[in-house]
């Protein structure tokens, strides 16, 4: 009669191995957790998901330190319940390893902020030029003088999109749509700007708020990875967007 451990060993499932020496880090404590769980009556403790996940990543990465066998081999006995527990852990391990959370990327964060700043400063520039309304300002604010701006935004959006989507993840699956919306918004502006030659400040002002709403969603996502804000609460209710919107239509706010 073989033990549950031996059975899994033969199946080349290496999640249930215990290091011989004292665990030096969080990942090892996850191994202990698994070890304890195999002692039938003790598998009621809450599973430390992060630690378990980390452990599995190390195991799957071929870290032999965690594949040393040892005490667990001797302590684990063949038992239907034991087998079920191991099956559960195996399934949970596979699920966890297939949906690892994305990591915060400071470069992506900086790129989003940089693009938002670039677009916003250009919107402010358009507003200012439109308000000055002199010959020189009209020329500077015309489409023909700002084609480069639209080209650069398109390039920067593509660069950002490629970086974010380079590591596909369930939580980033929405990004292609977000970028599509952002592109569509910029393209709408470009077309209207091109058709009319110039746009007045009463158009640029709300457009500025609208574009910032799109960037706010992206920034919220990235900052949530850093632990700065909750991913369930996009920052589109930020003071900036509310203030701008209120400026656009004070009557509704005052009613």
């Amino acid at each position, binding site marked *: 009669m073989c033990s549950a451990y031996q059975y899994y060993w033969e199946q080349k499932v290496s999640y249930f191995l215990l290091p011989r020496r004292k665990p030096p880090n969080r990942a090892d404590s996850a191994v202990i957790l698994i070890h304890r769980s195999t002692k039938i009556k003790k598998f009621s403790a809450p599973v430390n998901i992060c630690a378990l996940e980390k452990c599995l990543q190390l195991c799957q990465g071929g870290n032999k330190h965690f594949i040393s066998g040892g005490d667990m081999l001797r302590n684990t006995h063949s038992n239907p319940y034991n087998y079920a527990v191991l099956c559960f852990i195996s399934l949970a391990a596979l699920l966890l390893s297939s949906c690892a959370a994305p990591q915060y990327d400071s470069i992506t964060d900086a790129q989003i902020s940089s693009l938002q700043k670039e677009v916003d400063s250009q919107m402010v520039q358009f507003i200012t030029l439109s308000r000055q309304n002199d010959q020189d300002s009209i020329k500077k604010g015309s489409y023909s003088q700002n084609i480069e701006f639209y080209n650069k935004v398109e390039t920067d959006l593509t660069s950002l999109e490629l970086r974010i989507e380079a590591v596909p993840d369930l939580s980033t699956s*929405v990004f292609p749509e977000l970028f599509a919306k952002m592109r569509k*918004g910029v393209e709408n502006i470009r077309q209207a700007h091109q058709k009319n030659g110039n*746009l*007045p400040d009463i158009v640029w002002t*709300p457009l500025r708020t609208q*574009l910032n*709403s799109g960037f706010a969603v992206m920034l919220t996502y990235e900052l949530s990875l850093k632990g700065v804000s909750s991913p369930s609460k996009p920052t*589109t209710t930020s003071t900036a*967007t509310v203030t701008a919107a209120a400026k*656009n239509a004070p009557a509704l706010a005052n009613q």
Partner: protein
Amino acid sequence: MSSVNWITIYQQAIDAVKTSLGSTWSTVATSAQHSIQLLVQTAQYITDHSAELNEDEQKLLTDNQQLAMQSVLLGYKAIGIAAAEQAVDAAWGVIQPVLEAAIKIA
């Protein structure tokens, strides 16, 4: 200034989006309400400036405000692209006829 009661339109738009999103509404209520408010404010803004805005500019503002609202809703894991677009369509379905009528009067 327009004589439209935009607060009522706002409430009707919220009801329409609630119906569209169903149980997901409670998850997104705060951001959705703010987005609907911006959508209504855009309509009000266009009405108030209808003499200064041509049709292209009016369409640009309404189209981009709808895109902005879709983006906000897409920021929630619970909402997919189809649900986001339907929710925005539901809100716009309430606002658009009021806006068109208000522009004609203005």
